[in-house]
């Protein structure tokens, strides 16, 4: 194409239509990333409301009904609106560049997958302003809370999830088709960067389980409005059926969130260790093994619901098995750093924090996987602490690392290293102050999802809230850093940006041209 993308100087109309009608993987990646950051701020605001209310015992700021809506919406917005689209945005930006493709395989569908999201989340968030309020049954929306006892607005939630799922499926099909079909000559599967590998496996998980989520919300819809009895024992169904269907989706879903994060870290650590990734092929096989195991462990979320003992034992041992491939990965990251020429730029700091804190979250996961012990931990703050260690210190830290790492390549400007490090340390310390005490609270018996708590939990809750505000503040700094870089960062045209960076995306000019690879690059 002769002309570049429209900029603001071409007129506002042209500029807007560039983004709305775009079929360019970089534009769509940018849209995804900004959308996910907006959702991150929104979901973060919900979290701030929660932590402000829990700052002291007793009801201070909001009503318990609204508290329930906040916990629910925080989970939904963060999982489906912030983390997943963030990684889809990274996939859009990076996969074509990493495999030497000109664009995604199905560019128009790519744009559709993005633009569904603003509609889906407008519908979801609008329920907060409707009569009866938004969803208040937790992000796991267990029946019968989400069916018999749900507010009328649950229907908006259901259809919002439906189109969001359609978006995810289309996005994933696109990624699979891109990786299978668009690789440059010579780019064999076992030469693909690990980020591409983890994403194609993630996309497979998404195509496999998003339809199951659609099935779950469809069953809810029918039970609520059309008199079926999937989740009602009085009609011969079973509320526990909901949990099985949901977690058959939900457990692969947590790997959908974390596998691309593994991919990001596997790109960054070798760069700043100035060594190739240790055990590349074992990383690929470990990722595939984790993905496979994720389908056969779902009921470990349901140990207390009443399962035959054979089921409890099976799901316990199968869950523990996941520690093996995950251990392989952690071992490989550490071994990559071993005897490397390490430097500690912001992306590396976030990646090292990822390895430490994710491993910590993995260990608490091992504790939770012990069926007998889980009788005590289940639905306490210990669980909240556990999954925030893997979701926030895992997925969000790696997403932040990815932005710092690739931002110079995207916009041709360098971020301010000092500001990046300041953000890292505030985020790292704030995160641990916020979530470490929640382990203690949970072990002491504080249940999750309550707007109030006993006085014995007061001190650690106050500490946790202070940490949460600190972590929230770090995100404002992150936004400032990104805007400052794009607007006023120090220009750079070094294609490599980082001394130790390897891969096709570092061979194209900086900033990356609107269309990369007009002709296939050669991969040796």
């Amino acid at each position, binding site marked *: 194409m002769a002309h570049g993308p429209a900029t603001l100087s071409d007129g506002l109309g042209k500029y807007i*239509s560039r983004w*709305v*009608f775009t*079929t360019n993987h970089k534009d769509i990646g940018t849209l995804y990333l900004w959308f996910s950051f907006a959702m991150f701020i929104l979901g973060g605001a919900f979290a701030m409301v929660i932590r402000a209310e829990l700052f002291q015992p007793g009801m201070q700021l909001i009503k318990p009904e609204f508290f329930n809506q906040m916990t629910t919406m925080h989970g939904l917005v963060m999982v489906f609106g912030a983390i997943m689209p963030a990684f889809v945005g990274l996939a859009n930006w990076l996969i074509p560049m990493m495999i030497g*493709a000109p*664009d995604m395989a*199905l560019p*128009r*569908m790519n744009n*559709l997958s993005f*633009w*569904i999201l603003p*509609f889906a989340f407008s519908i979801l968030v609008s329920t907060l302003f409707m009569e009866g309020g938004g969803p208040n049954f937790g992000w796991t929306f267990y029946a019968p809370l989400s069916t018999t006892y749900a507010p009328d607005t649950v*229907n*908006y939630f*259901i*259809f*919002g999830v*439906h189109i969001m799922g359609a978006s995810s*499926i289309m996005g994933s*099909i*696109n990624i699979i*088709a891109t990786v299978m*079909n*668009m690789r440059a000559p010579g780019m064999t599967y076992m030469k693909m960067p690990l980020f591409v590998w983890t994403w194609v496996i993630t996309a497979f998980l998404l*195509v*496999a389980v*998003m*339809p*199951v989520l*659609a*099935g779950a919300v469809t*069953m809810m819809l*029918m039970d609520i409005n*059309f008199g*079926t*009895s*999937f989740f009602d*024992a*009085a*009609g*011969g*169904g*079973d509320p*526990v*059926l909901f949990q*099985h*269907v949901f977690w*058959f989706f939900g457990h692969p879903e947590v790997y959908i969130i974390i596998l691309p994060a593994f991919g990001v870290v596997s790109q960054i650590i070798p760069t700043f260790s100035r060594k190739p990734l240790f055990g590349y092929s074992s990383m690929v096989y470990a990722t595939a093994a984790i993905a496979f195991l994720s389908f056969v462990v779902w009921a470990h979320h349901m140990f207390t619901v*009443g*399962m*035959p*003992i*054979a*089921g409890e034992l099976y799901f316990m041992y199968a869950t523990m098995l996941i520690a093996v491939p995950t251990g392989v990965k952690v071992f490989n990251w550490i071994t990559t750093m071993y005897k490397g020429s390490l430097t500690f730029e912001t992306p590396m700091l976030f990646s090292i924090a990822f390895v430490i804190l994710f491993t910590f979250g993995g260990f608490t996961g091992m504790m939770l996987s012990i069926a007998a012990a889980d009788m005590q931990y289940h639905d306490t703050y210990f669980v909240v602490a556990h999954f925030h260690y893997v979701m926030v210190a895992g997925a969000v830290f790696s997403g932040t690392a990815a932005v710092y790492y690739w931002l110079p390549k995207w916009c041709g400007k360098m971020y301010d290293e000092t500001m990046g490090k300041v953000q890292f340390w505030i985020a790292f310390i704030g995160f641990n102050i916020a979530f470490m005490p929640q382990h203690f609270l949970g072990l002491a018996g504080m249940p999750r999802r309550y707007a109030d708590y006993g006085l014995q939990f007061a001190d650690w809750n106050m500490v946790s809230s202070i940490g949460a505000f600190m972590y929230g503040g770090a995100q404002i700094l992150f936004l400032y850093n990104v805007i400052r870089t794009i607007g006023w960062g120090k220009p750079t045209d070094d294609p490599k940006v980082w001394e130790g960076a390897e891969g096709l995306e570092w061979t194209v000019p900086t900033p990356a041209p609107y*269309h990369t*690879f*007009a*002709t*296939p690059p050669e991969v040796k």
Partner: protein
Amino acid sequence: MSTEGTYYVPEQSKLPIFAATGMGVMAYGAASWVLEGGSATIFLIGSLIMAAVLYKWWSIVIDENMRGLASPQLKQSYVLGMLWFIFSEVMFFACFFGALFYVRVLVSSWIGGEAAVGWFDDTPTDASAANAQYLYPGYENVWPPMITPDQAVNGDAAQFKGPDEAMNNPGILNWGSWLPFWNTVVLLTSSFTVHVAHVALKDGNRKKFNTWLGITVALGIFFLFLQAEEYIHAYQELGLTLESGIYGTTFFMLTGFHGMHVTLGTAMLLIQWLRGLKGHFSHDDQFGFEAASWYWHFVDVVWVGLFIFVYILT
């Protein structure tokens, strides 16, 4: 669409944003429609937008292909897209089949006060069975359940009532007068006829292609007609409805979603048939038709699963 070097680089498109708008309006409209006193207007507006966009979208794709703009690589992307879409559909049905198996094998026996089948006869299972017998005394584990647990306790005052009669398998010797069996015959035959049409097209025999694809579409419509007959029979004569407890729920949700997919598949094939009459496709380029036929084989396989697990094994 233009090509640069050996690669295909797409131009901007207005289709996606209209499609997303259509989906958003449909979702919002559907949610407000199912509310008490809701109206279908918004949903219908969304559906119209969506239908218009899809018509336009596929017209453009067909046109690009006819003008030879689609590179072999792009065609391969369409192939992969269709295959993985069908895989996602498989998982959707797996969800409902899974629900059926879970209810039939485990839930029904638990509510009926029996221990979990064939596993350990240990305390927790017996405890949950005892709980169930406390909640729903008198409920018996039979499939299909003609009396819901609710009915076993509350009799005629129950909210969930079982059917008067089930879609029972009359025994293989009586299948000749059993509608589901003929449904199976019709659908399996259509899978065969669509294959004959495919072979004919590959041989360049367009007349034969049109004929056999036309027969396939007719069989698809005939299947839907029989299915409608069966639903009328169930509702009016058997008292078997969507609200007949878990049996009615699983029966109508599985066959209903299958029926919706047959409707979609028939529409796909019909469009391909009309395209065939207009002279589209060649002996070596026929992906639109192939995709529709893969989809058709998929709904056929789902039906075989339904026939076995919903109809025969009662």
